[in-house]
């Protein structure tokens, strides 16, 4: 397998993980960018554990899931049912703070970066298996009472409350799970790339993830998969002079999809129709 293809598939799968971690809380209208800060924390944690303490991949991954979930769980006590923008600003503020902390901490490599993280031998297999597990888990949540309750909260929170649904509980649960997914994505990222830079965890990442979520569609968990592949793929096909405008293309696409087809390319109704035809 060519290294270009390997990187393409690996990055795409990490982005799908991250997009899912944003997708799940958005089921109750929370744009939970705390996950990006979480990813930064666990990737550096994983890197340090591997480089300085000789931890291997699997225990690091398990720890990162717990840490990621824990961060989101603690914060979710205050923003578990906060308005969308409060959740957004809390998340982005954390991203900014974590980034500054990394940049100013020599132990973490500062602005120069953290190097020498042992890379996985078969990253794609690990990623694929993990993605399937997470996907199955999300699928079960979607098709449970909790998933249906989330849909009610999305359309009408007052109606949900009158039906006995507790938006805060579901918000906290989704944010916690999302934190766990983001935690795992951080470690996968660290062990896939081998070096970490604070500049990776910025608005660019938030913007890219948002583009993947909204282009793919936020009404089903499947939309982000083709969206991640396509959006990661576009810059690879284009000549490098145009590919450097990648974020501009993402931005234009993001505005366009919201203005033309706000539910994204793949929607629940569309999947229903496909299923019925068969």
């Amino acid at each position, binding site marked *: 397998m060519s290294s270009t293809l390997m990187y393409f598939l690996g990055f795409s799968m990490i982005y799908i993980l991250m997009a899912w971690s944003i997708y799940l809380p958005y089921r109750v209208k929370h744009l939970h960018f705390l996950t990006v800060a979480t990813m930064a924390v666990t990737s550096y944690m994983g890197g340090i554990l591997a480089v300085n303490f000789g931890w291997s991949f699997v225990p690091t991954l398990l720890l990162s899931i717990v840490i990621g979930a824990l961060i989101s769980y603690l914060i979710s006590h205050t923003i578990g049912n906060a308005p969308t923008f409060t959740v957004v600003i809390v998340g982005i503020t954390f991203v900014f703070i974590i980034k500054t902390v990394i940049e100013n901490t020599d132990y973490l490599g500062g602005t120069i970066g953290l190097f020498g993280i042992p890379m996985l031998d078969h990253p794609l297999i690990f990623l694929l298996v993990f993605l399937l597990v997470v996907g199955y888990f999300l699928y079960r949540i979607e098709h449970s009472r909790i998933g249906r309750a989330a849909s009610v909260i999305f359309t009408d929170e007052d109606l949900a409350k009158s039906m006995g649904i507790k938006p805060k509980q579901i918000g906290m649960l989704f944010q916690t799970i999302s934190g766990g997914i983001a935690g795992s994505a951080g470690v996968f990222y660290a062990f896939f790339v081998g070096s970490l830079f604070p500049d990776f965890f910025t608005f660019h990442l*938030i913007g890219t993830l948002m583009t993947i979520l909204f282009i793919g569609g936020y009404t089903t968990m499947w939309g982000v998969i083709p969206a991640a592949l396509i959006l990661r793929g576009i810059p690879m096909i284009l000549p490098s002079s145009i590919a450097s405008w990648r974020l501009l293309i993402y931005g234009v696409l993001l505005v366009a999809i919201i203005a033309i087809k706000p539910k994204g390319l793949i929607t629940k109704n569309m999947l229903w129709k496909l299923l019925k035809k068969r």
Partner: protein
Amino acid sequence: MEFFIAQVLNGLSLGSIYVLLVTGFNLMLLVAKIIQFAYPQFVVISMYATWAVLRATNNVILAILVTIVVSIALNLLSEPIFRRITSIKGTDINATFVASIGLSMVLVEIMSHSFNQGFPISFSDSWVGGSVFRYGIINISRSSIFAWVGGIIVVVAFFYLLYRTMVGRSFRAIAENLYVAKLFGIPIFKTSMMSYLIAGLLGGFIALLLSMLIGTASPWLGESVALKVLAVSIVAGLGNLKGGLFVGLALGVVESFAIGYVAGSWSNVIAFVIMLIVILTKPKGLFGAAVE
């Protein structure tokens, strides 16, 4: 004591800028019913316009005019996009927020690819202006005075407009209840356009004051400013215009003290940590939200 006064004075000039930014942001939130995360980006682009005109012609009047025109034009041009989005059935204000982040990405890329090879720009000393008054370490620059005086004049003019004119009353009417405003026969589209126009005019002033006060700009300036503006608006209570005045000034002062006492880039974090604590403990803001 001198040090204290110096930091307060510096903080108030930076705070004036935040006040104006959050006022323009809140105006569009209340009247056009959008979350315009790209508004600070429009300000930064207008600063680039100031810089470009000054470099090409060195004509101050022309630079001021172009800056204001660019700012108004950008805001008015964004209106059809947001109108289109808000008119789609079943979408809410979140959609405008997501789209404005997309817009923000586009603008950052344009600035980082097309101006000064992506390097930060800096304004000439004659534009920034020197010191006007010095007493020990208290140093009052011309740009600080512009920021204070400009800030006060613009805020007073804005609140005069809001409470003493028909346009202002219509703004407040739509902010309170869009449906009732419709029943009254208030022209929603025209009034909404006015809010973009005034936010644009405000943005032009902000660009001029900010370019003098900090003397530089970079493609990424807008992102951190946008974050602060959204945070200030939420800390004050989303859409709370009077609360925004207080919190905007407070942020300026807090940042100024952080810069005074804490080294390097850590200072930037202090203000964010404080705002984060406020938001986590009071998610609806200090003065109560005016929307939602």
